[in-house]
């Protein structure tokens, strides 16, 4: 425990800015993964235990595309589009067979794919740590805000995630497709009876969730090291986010992810060895006081 370091940081604006931005990027990446998880759960009623694998594939796709083309934009696109296609195939071929089966069966199918995907990555890209490297466009002087160092890439990352959150939020509540998706979450039989292809919606939502996780992986690729199995800790953390925020709530995912990101960045100062423990502790506190999460519906 190092409470002096934490207190020292809280009293200095430079440190405060640095830690807050690093907390925000952790939170934003988590949000992108968690919102996909919560969306898939909300509509399909399954917990995609292999969601971390999409994050991992997004990062690897982005790295490969970046190495081939040298274009950062194409790398992001490859990460997002590749995982969207993967998600669609995965849902249509495998997950659609276990809807309505018990949780154990769904967990098992996903567990099988966690094992398979990790080995596939190991075969294609090798077991060692990889790095994508920071694109040249972002290798510029960091910004100084109130004495704190903020790399420009962090701003881009936060911006992209915020845009995704806003588009998703407005799209789901206002657009026709969003309304159909919410209707399908509420009563799939009725939606199907009205002549809408629910299989297509399910596949689409799964692809969207996979794409968001892939985008998070692609955005994280320049600032994180890539390794098979990198998705699992992200999965656990994004699950904590959805539990804290409430399953199925997008706003809850955003708030939960930001809280968790800040706990991580400030916790690493005050409790360097017990940062992960702090997150679990926080989750337990939330669950004990409000079992459905901060923004969960009572009947959940």
């Amino acid at each position, binding site marked *: 425990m190092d409470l002096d370091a934490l207190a020292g940081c809280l009293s200095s604006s430079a440190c405060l800015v640095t830690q807050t931005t690093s907390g925000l990027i952790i939170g934003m990446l988590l949000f992108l993964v968690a919102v996909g998880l919560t969306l898939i759960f909300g509509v399909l009623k399954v*917990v995609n235990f292999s969601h971390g694998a999409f994050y991992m594939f997004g990062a690897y796709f982005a790295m490969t595309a970046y190495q081939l083309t040298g274009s950062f934009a194409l790398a992001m696109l490859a990460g997002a589009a590749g995982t969207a296609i993967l998600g669609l195939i995965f849902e249509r071929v495998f997950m659609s067979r276990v809807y309505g089966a018990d949780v154990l069966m769904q967990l*098992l199918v996903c*567990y099988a794919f966690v*094992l398979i995907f990790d080995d596939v990555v190991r075969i294609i890209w090798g077991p060692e740590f990889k790095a994508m490297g920071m694109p040249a466009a972002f290798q510029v002087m960091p910004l100084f805000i109130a004495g704190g160092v903020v790399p420009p890439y962090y701003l881009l990352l936060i911006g992209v995630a915020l845009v995704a959150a806003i588009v998703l939020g407005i799209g789901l509540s206002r657009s026709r497709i969003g309304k159909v998706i919410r209707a399908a979450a509420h009563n799939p039989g009725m939606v199907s009876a009205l002549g809408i292809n629910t299989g297509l919606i399910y596949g689409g939502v799964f692809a969207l969730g996979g794409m968001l996780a892939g985008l998070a992986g692609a955005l994280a690729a320049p600032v994180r090291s890539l390794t098979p199995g990198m998705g*699992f800790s992200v999965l656990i953390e994004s699950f904590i986010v959805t539990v804290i925020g409430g*399953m199925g709530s997008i706003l809850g995912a955003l708030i939960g992810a930001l809280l968790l990101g800040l706990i991580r960045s400030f916790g690493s100062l005050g409790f360097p060895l*017990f940062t992960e423990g702090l997150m679990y502790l926080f989750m337990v506190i939330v669950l004990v006081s409000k*079992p459905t999460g901060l923004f969960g519906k009572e009947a959940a």
Partner: protein
Amino acid sequence: MTELEAGRTQALAPVQSGAALRRYRDVLIALIAFAVLASLPLFTGSKALLDFVIRCSAYGLFATSLNLLVGYTGLTSFGHGMFFGLGAYSFGLIMQKLGVSIPVAFVATLAITAVVAGVIGAICVRLKEIYFAFVTLAFQMLIHSTILSWASFTGGDQGLRGGIPRPAFLGINLANHIHLYIASCALLILGLLAMRQIAQSPFGYTLRMIRDNAARASFLGIDVWRAKLTVFVLAALFASMGGMVMALFVSGAYPEFAYWTISGEAIFINMLGGVSTFLGPMVGTVLLLLLNDTVTRFTEYHGIVLGVVILFFALGLRKGLLDFVADWFAQRRDPGEGR
């Protein structure tokens, strides 16, 4: 005694004696199984085979205890491995630091497990199935990260090294391979017998009712929360026993014992063998360990092979092997009632 009550006692009597008979039958089967396992070293000198049985004992206790939760109560715990790891670490640490005799450490470990499981269970068992699965998983990761970060006490990612002292007690010397083997078999058989008693007791049937319809059980005046918590703690005790057997076998404890994959494997074992029969997890244990041993010999990518086998069971058979066999027999017995 009124006529009605008299009639009822008569109707109840055969059921009672039937239960007693079944209990004697279980004990008899257990004794025979133990005799067979214990006489194994007389026929074969193969250390690999005996090691295999010891590993089966550790995993079998662990997986069967998970079945108490998953199969009998409908609680899909995805963090049951934490008690396996907890048992291994507590036992190892008590033996290393305190130097007490093995039975004392054994009982102390069970006491520690009961307390930890009581606290975690009290938080978890009121959650709905998916929340329950993931919150138990989160607790597992909490214990795992505690083990990793508290390096001065637990040895961090290196695990508990330097061996666990195994002083002889009551003429049993667990440093001796044969003694260790017999003790593991005895623990396995005793543990299985105890779990069988729990499963067949009125409490066991209460658990089945909770699994099938918790609201109804609640209306009938059953304290669902307390029953779930009780079985959660009981299952944790047997998982901890499995962990202790493992710690004795490898003479140490490693963070992998508390990692989430252990829980994943236990669920897979249950799936592989089947959750609707008592011995399903035991069959699954033998299958998984055989599979693991053969696959790792042929390829370094055993994740893919295991994954495909899991998919075959989950999407193809849709039930465990023993469930499959049991259904097949039932179908043959009365073919008119095909399902």
